[in-house]
């Protein structure tokens, strides 16, 4: 019994996958657990594992093809087995595939479904033998000729017969007057036009005739640009970009965002980090980034502000307040961005957060993350400080109820006890989903984050 292999759902948000590489060939012996191919999803490139024994009988799609979840991509079975049913049936189901091969199969199948063409004047004996009424139609008329549009783009009303005659005689219906109800063009109108003879095409058409001119003429400038001066370059939208587009648009359209910015004194935090990293270097531990301090601060603050660590789920009719704190950290990679998740960050020490974040970020850049490593964040931070961005607003990563946008650490004059002195400050901006987080709730959370960063010894407790 042949087994169809279909495009699996490899992540929560995956809708289609690109078969990036076949790792086995048709005719290869397959055992359960073998890797058949690699599939690029919207998040990562993942292995497609075989769950059955047999011979890889057919690769249905090619490397680089993008197909929706559930579409047939390969067939495993016994050597020499007839799998035409499987291939035919699966192709028939497929609607979304842009796969040209599938489309052709479908067309062929349709053609086969059409009953054999017989002479229309089939003798009546046969009708009696095999009653052919009631949908069992033996012959179908030609494919319908579509209606055209007139100069203003309005649909031309013409009877099906008039359209067909017009097409057969190359008559432009836009130049035929209809005599039927509401100006419908009917047979006699087209026939009258054919009798008159189709007028010569308008002159500008003749000028455009692609005949090579025997001699160069002054007034025939061409506006074709050389390739390297083309007005734009085109690239296909990647799976990741599609996902970013869909999820962030969904977030921005459905979650009413508002923004709270706070300027945090990070003098002590910067000093603490330097001290900790000196120790880390001596003891061979992972260095702590300033971002790790923010991760820890947010994680601790979230424990005290459950609505910021929550999700508004209208379909379920609930606001879900998470008991655990999973910190999503936006990482820029070549193709876009991804948010690996540090789980239970409130319960992890700074060193562990630092080590884990670094490792996840590296694997994100090599597109090597497993789905469970980038799914399930309850809160997200995005840091553009390293690019010198003073402050910015981020779009909430759904279904989170907030996201923290982190700016650079600035050396700036500050007023302390009535005197202007040098200070270290950092602006962070919280984007809140107003369906869950109100202004005061967001402000209180930010105040907690600030307290942790301004008195960073609390992070070590």
């Amino acid at each position, binding site marked *: 019994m042949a087994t169809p292999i279909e495009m699996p759902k490899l992540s929560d948000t995956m809708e289609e996958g690109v078969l990036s590489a076949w790792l086995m060939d048709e005719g290869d012996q397959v055992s359960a657990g073998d890797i058949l191919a690699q599939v690029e999803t919207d998040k990562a490139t993942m292995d497609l594992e075989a769950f059955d024994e047999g011979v890889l009988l057919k690769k249905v799609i090619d490397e680089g093809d993008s197909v929706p979840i559930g579409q047939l991509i390969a067939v495993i079975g016994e050597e020499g087995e007839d799998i035409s049913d499987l291939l035919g049936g699966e192709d028939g189901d497929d609607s979304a595939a842009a796969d040209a091969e599938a489309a052709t199969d479908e067309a062929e199948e349709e053609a086969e479904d059409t009953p054999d063409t017989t002479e229309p004047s089939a003798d009546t004996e046969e009708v*009696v033998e095999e009653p052919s009424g009631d949908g069992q*139609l033996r012959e179908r008329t030609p494919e319908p000729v579509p209606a055209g549009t007139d100069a203003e783009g309005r649909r031309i009303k013409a*009877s099906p017969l008039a359209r067909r005659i017009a097409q057969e005689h190359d008559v432009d219906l836009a130049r035929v007057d209809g005599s*039927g109800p509401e100006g419908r063009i*009917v047979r006699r109108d087209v026939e009258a036009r054919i009798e008159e003879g189709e007028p010569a095409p308008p002159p500008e058409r003749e000028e455009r005739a692609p005949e090579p001119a025997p001699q160069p003429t002054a007034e025939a400038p061409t506006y074709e640009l050389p390739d390297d001066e083309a007005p734009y370059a085109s690239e296909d939208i990647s799976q990741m970009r599609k996902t970013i587009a869909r999820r962030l648009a969904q977030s921005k359209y459905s979650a009413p965002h508002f923004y709270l910015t706070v300027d945090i004194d990070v003098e002590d935090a910067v000093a603490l980090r330097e001290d900790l990293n000196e120790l880390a270097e001596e003891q061979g531990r992972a260095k702590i980034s300033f971002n790790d301090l923010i991760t820890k601060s947010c994680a601790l603050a979230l424990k005290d502000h459950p609505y910021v660590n929550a999700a508004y789920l209208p379909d379920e009719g609930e606001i879900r307040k998470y008991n655990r704190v999973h910190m999503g950290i936006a990482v820029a990679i070549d193709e876009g961005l991804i948010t690996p998740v540090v789980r239970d960050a409130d319960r992890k020490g700074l060193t562990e957060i630092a080590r884990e974040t670094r490792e996840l970020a590296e694997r994100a850049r090599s597109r090597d993350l497993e789905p469970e490593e980038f799914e399930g964040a309850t809160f997200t931070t995005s840091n553009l400080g390293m690019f010198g961005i003073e402050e910015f607003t981020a779009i909430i990563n759904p279904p989170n109820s907030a996201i923290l946008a982190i700016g650079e650490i600035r050396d700036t004059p500050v007023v302390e006890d009535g005197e202007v002195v040098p200070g270290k400050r950092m602006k962070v901006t919280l984007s809140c989903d107003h369906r869950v987080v109100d202004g005061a709730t967001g402000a209180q959370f930010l105040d907690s984050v600030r307290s942790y960063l301004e008195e960073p010894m609390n992070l070590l407790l």
Partner: protein
Amino acid sequence: MATLQFREALRAAMTEEMERDDDIFLIGEEVAEYDGAYKVSKGMLDQFGSRRVIDSPISELGFAGLGIGAAMNGLRPIVEFMTFNFSFVAFDQVINNAPNMQYMSGGQFTVPIVFRGPNGAAGQLGATHSNSTEALYSTFPGLKVVAPSIPDDGKGLLKTAIRDDDPVVFLESELMYGMKDEVSDAEDYTIPIGSARVAREGDDVTIVAHSKSYHIAMDAADELEERGYEAEVIDPRTIKPLDIETIVESVVKTNRLVVIDESNPFASVASEVTHQVQDRAFDYLDAPILRVTAPDTPAPYAPNLMDAYMPGVDETVDKCLQVLYAK
């Protein structure tokens, strides 16, 4: 050829078949002693005796079921409904048992039975006695439905229906029983079920009409001829299986179709013909297909209202001129 009334042609069909095959019998209300409510079976009791020409009680469900049982046991009953309005009380037998028995028994039983009698409106009979049943019975797989319009077809088709191994609903008309026309007296004269008759040839518009409506179509074609249009008139004769090939062939030639059907319009035979033609001949249509039917109301009693209710020649000519874009 002999000139016979429609009722005589039907009687000839039954008589010839019963002479040929002793398994055939006729049962129904008043078919024996009274010679039939419309005298279709006149003299048959005398010829075949009360074993084969049987007066039933007023109990359609009972004698329709009795007929089906007899058919399953090897006989070939002809069940006469005094009118098809009364077939409604036998509905379960006609639509459930007769057509499904062969299928449900895995082919162990066939039901070679004919349900026959007058169908449709017949003057001032009121709403409950003016029903047209052809679309209704045609909707159930397993039933064949025949509705002839002229005596000759009546004879040839009834003989075929009696010989058919499937249940056949054979629809006649009170108003046509007295109609006289040439009827073949050829030996073993049968007309196949499922073949339409092109009654009149023409190039300009096709009119499809069965049973009484056929005569309206022929009169309308005469009137159209006076106006310079040649109508092609097709009588499907059998509603199911429908000879759609013949109709489509004609529409491919004329590019226009008007269907007359004295039934109520919703889900009628005219609806079905219209659907099948647009499905198969869409690119040959130069105009929308129009129908001439009774309105979607119960049949009235008053004669002036009845005239307005039934399809007529004027309305048919009018619809034909519309599809000809001549109005």
